[in-house]
């Protein structure tokens, strides 16, 4: 039996949607023309799909494209052949996290992992903790700006002080343990 190609692997990374018809892409570029973040990507969404079809696995996984995707789904609703392009970007994010691929200057994987860990610990998100996942790599200017904003929010009573947590946390953790091994994220 031959191994699935990279394009087949990516096609099948959307479990609940039962796959994604990447092979129907006609390279029209509507996705790239619609994307609000395209200027920041090293390859446009249209090009990434072409590269996936050409099985350029290493090049695709070395790209920053999917980490710039803001999940706005504008490309998805406009694709003339019904490819869930934003879904593909999610799939590539997952794939690169599984493979522990870290790209210079890309905070997405750290941010995502911090967010998920926070929730697995308490059941709810806590913004001040999330900010720290980004601030450790930020410059002095960003620190000052964030601190300034946080002060403003605090004065208006809009900054949480204590991390919230759900009541049935033990049940919640056992529930998660049925889906993924918690050790991998702790």
């Amino acid at each position, binding site marked *: 039996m031959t191994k699935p190609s990279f394009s087949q692997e990516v096609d099948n990374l*959307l*479990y*609940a*949607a*039962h796959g994604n018809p990447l092979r129907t892409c006609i390279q029209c570029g509507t996705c790239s023309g619609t994307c*609000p*973040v395209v200027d*920041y990507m090293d390859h446009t969404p249209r090009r990434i799909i072409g590269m996936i079809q050409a099985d350029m696995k290493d090049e695709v996984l070395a790209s920053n494209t999917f*980490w*710039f995707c*803001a*999940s*706005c*789904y*504008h490309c*998805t*609703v406009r694709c003339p052949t019904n490819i*869930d392009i*934003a879904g593909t970007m*999610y799939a590539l*994010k*997952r794939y690169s*996290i599984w493979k522990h691929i870290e790209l210079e200057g*890309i*905070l*997405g*994987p750290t*941010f*995502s*992992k911090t*967010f*998920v860990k926070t*929730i697995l610990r308490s*059941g*709810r*998100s*806590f*913004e001040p903790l999330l*900010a720290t996942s*980004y601030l450790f790599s930020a410059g002095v200017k960003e620190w000052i*700006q964030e601190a300034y*904003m946080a002060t*403003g*929010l605090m004065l*208006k*009573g*809009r*900054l*949480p002080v204590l991390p*919230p947590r*759900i*009541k049935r946390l033990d*049940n*919640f953790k*056992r*529930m*998660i343990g*049925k*889906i*993924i091994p918690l050790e991998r994220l702790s």
Partner: protein
Amino acid sequence: MKDYAYFPGCSLEKTALSYHQSSLETARKLGIELKELEDWNCCGATTYFHVDELLAYTLSARNIAMAEKENLDLVAPCSACYKNSYFTNKHLKEDPDLADHINVALKEDNLHFSGNIEVQHMIEVFVKDVGPEEIKNNVTQPLEGLQVAPYYGCQILRPKKDNEDVEQPEFFEELLSAIGAVPVPYPLKLHCCGGSLIISSRLASLSMVRNLLQNAEDSGAEIIATACPLCQINLECYQQQVNQEFGTKFSTPVVYFTQLLGLALGIPAKRIGIGTEIVAATPLAPFAK
């Protein structure tokens, strides 16, 4: 009127407290009771899907299963909570194998997904269930002349669900007209604010926010109305950073649509969180009690 199982989501606990207050107050004024889910968990925003798809569906399924227990449809004010809950509900209803798999996990919390409720966004409750006509009948303080940019953002409308208009929706405008305000033509109303890119790719997100603020200003809006806590935070709280980054001078208040509805229905400003803005909502002063 109908009652709902209400899933406020993490932002509404603090940074978007005014959305929480104004949703509850405004709904109540129109005879709708929003019953908060007793032990809801975070929907994961976009990030669970970056890590594990099944995990993401399981976490949203827990909230849906709690609403099913109450026998009430689920309503979420945050667009990300809504999108995640909506599509979890849809996928699990359509795929019994997936539902079975997730039910094994839900059993640990004595819950079960059966697929017998619907998921709605807060704005749909006012647009579809109450309707602009009924809202208009209840207005005691019309927001006459107030020029409002209706900012839809992304995940209320996208991904597409059925045959709804995802390119030129008008329901937000109709809601604003019903309370006497003037919805300005806002060409970028469906464009993205960057969402969580504000943390992971700050500059990209700030430039998206700049475009949205510029477009609102060019459209003659005095104020922007949103229906999502992340949109609100990006547009309002990061406005100063946009000004510093791009040398602009924006000072446009950004409030929740429920706050505007609340004012028009005669609810005291304080009870719907008006006054907790970073960019003061001065255009609302003539209507505030």
